[in-house]
């Protein structure tokens, strides 16, 4: 008997009804991610406010890359919504397909983020602007990696255990993915691309 199962033994009450714990955990973890992104944004705007020249003269940051990163994540959000919808409708096959496609879009984002980081012409050591931009990219990339891991767990639970497609894990993974997108959209890099004066 496992340690957890032993606590459920005896005449303990059955698991109570209520929202899924994994969904709540996804929301709270996503909230923390958004907060970290907002903190970087606050610093970014303060940096802009306090700098005579912003961004630094030598920076030629093509906002096209930032817009493409945003578009990639937004598209993946549609796929995550599809997965959640299919799971709710009990369509296991569609849910699995949508999960896989969401993960593929996540990998595409990581690829583009890596390309962006290696082609912007500056790094975290170049200047504070560079430190914020690279930190923002790294934060979202780490979150996307966590999101892909979450999607993989949902996929494995659905596929290997043959659980019904409405498994709460799929719903939680999709919601966490939405929060990653929100965190990215309020990040300095995404807003720089959308609001650049150029």
């Amino acid at each position, binding site marked *: 008997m496992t*340690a*957890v199962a032993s606590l459920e033994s005896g005449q303990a009450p059955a698991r109570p009804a*209520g929202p899924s714990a994994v969904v*709540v955990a996804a929301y709270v*973890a996503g909230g*923390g991610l958004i907060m970290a992104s907002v903190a970087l944004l606050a610093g970014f705007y303060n940096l802009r406010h306090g700098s005579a020249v912003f961004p630094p003269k030598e920076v030629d940051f093509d906002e096209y890359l930032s817009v493409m990163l945003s578009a990639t994540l937004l598209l993946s959000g549609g796929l995550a919504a599809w997965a959640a919808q299919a799971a709710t409708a009990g369509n296991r096959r569609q849910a699995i397909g949508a999960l896989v496609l969401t993960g593929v879009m996540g990998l595409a984002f990581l690829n583009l983020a890596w390309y962006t980081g290696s082609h912007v012409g500056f*790094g975290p050591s170049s200047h*504070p602007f560079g430190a914020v931009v690279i*930190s923002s990219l790294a934060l979202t990339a780490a979150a996307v990696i966590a999101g892909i891991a979450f999607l993989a767990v949902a996929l494995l639970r659905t596929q290997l255990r043959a659980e019904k497609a409405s498994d709460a894990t799929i719903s939680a993974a999709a919601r966490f993915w939405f929060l990653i997108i929100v965190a990215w959209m309020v990040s300095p890099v995404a807003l720089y691309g959308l609001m650049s004066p150029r």
Partner: protein
Amino acid sequence: MARESLLSTADHKRLGRMQIVLSLALLAVAGSAGIFIRLQAAGGSIDHFDAMTSLHDALVGVFVVIPLWLGIATAIVPLQLGTSRLAFPKASSFALALYTGGAALVVAAYTKTPAPSSGRTVFDGVPLPGSLAKLADTKGADLLVLGMILGAVATVLMTVNLVATISARRAHGLTIGRLPYFSWSVLAAGIGIAIATPVFIGGLALVWIDQHFGGSFFTSSAANALWTHAVWLGGRPEALLPAAFLLGTGSDIISTATGKPNQLDVVTRGAIGAFVTFSFLTWTASASDAGAFLAPFVNPALALPALAAGVVVLSWLAQLRGGLKPVPALVPLVLALGVGVLGLVDGLIALTNDDRGAIWSQHSLTLFAVFLPLAGAVAALIHWAPKLVGGSVPLPLAGLSSLAVFVGSALYILSGALLGADGSADYAPAWSTADGHGGLATLGALGIIAAAGGVVILAVGFVAARAKTVGANAYGNGTTLEWAAASPPVPHNFDSVPDVTSATPLAAGAAS
């Protein structure tokens, strides 16, 4: 059932107790550093001031205050919810391992030469963890930063688990609006901690980037201002949020003492929620004024959470009109409130003295962020001792331990107030023994020693409590579900859970 090892246990009560003991042990280390700083200042020699301050701030800020309350919550919240376990039992077990490892790394950092000495933190030009960036790239600095990252990640894991447990594992009928006040405060403050801590973790990660990948985040004046504004998005709420646990605990203690439903239930819950919300708004004080960070911690925005806390206390007084039955935690609760009043008075003095406010507000911050949560935790531990060790803490020991913490807080704040009144605008390195500041530094050290004595007395009280077993409803007036569990609870907590049709399912007249 075979007894599980400490590392593999999924029993929230054991995990909670271990967390409490570890937090208090680290408090002893941090307190020793605080005493050391003041005794050195009293002697006019500040050789190790920076290193000791860094050790003190790293432990208190990450490993003591919030983890102590999370330990209490881990042990008590599932009992209040009428459930047998946490939502993710293994996650808390893993978090405890991370926490222990992180604390070990931080302490180990100070076995290296040179010891990491980032200097002042709260009042540094670049606050913690930014102040760590100026450390030389040494093994000690690496261990300190890595240890703090592990501790902060463990904090997030623990709070997410508690929030998920409260959201998803409540007994039938126990709606969010019927949660016991402590669980309510854990839900509200837990969400706050879970979303504020990642900001701090992000800062530590940036320090790591600066030190190992040639980053420049913390090395330019513009970046300093950047981080100054960003860090308080996490730092200011985390300094205040432990007081929310105290508000929840106090509300439960008052409910247990009266044994009746709270007529101002919505007001009490609303005010606790408002306190948590307002603790985030205090960040705006530094966000709106680039220079505000270096100004005193205490600022007008602090009036908002103070107001919310005042409403909670007024709701307690309103309940007392109907009479009460004395419970051991009442005196500790009153003395904890006394600590809060001391901090408010000191904070008001700081607000009205711009030129010498720093020393006052520094002491006020420590009172709010360390002494007040500690006094509150003493009250909580005494109140729920029957669920933690199976018996109640004898009244004299309960009163004495909380009195010692109160006296220690008073001595500590008095030393700061007198230093400020005597013209000392800076911290220990600037104190002059010729001006009699050495004696005041000793007074501050005595305050810390007195508070530590209170914790030792409490430990003696817990030893005595093990021999003084009590029934499930230890004080006879408990109205929430934890008082339906045996003292100490069985491994699965409940053989049967009473029907819940109100916020006080065990109150006289309630369905059972």
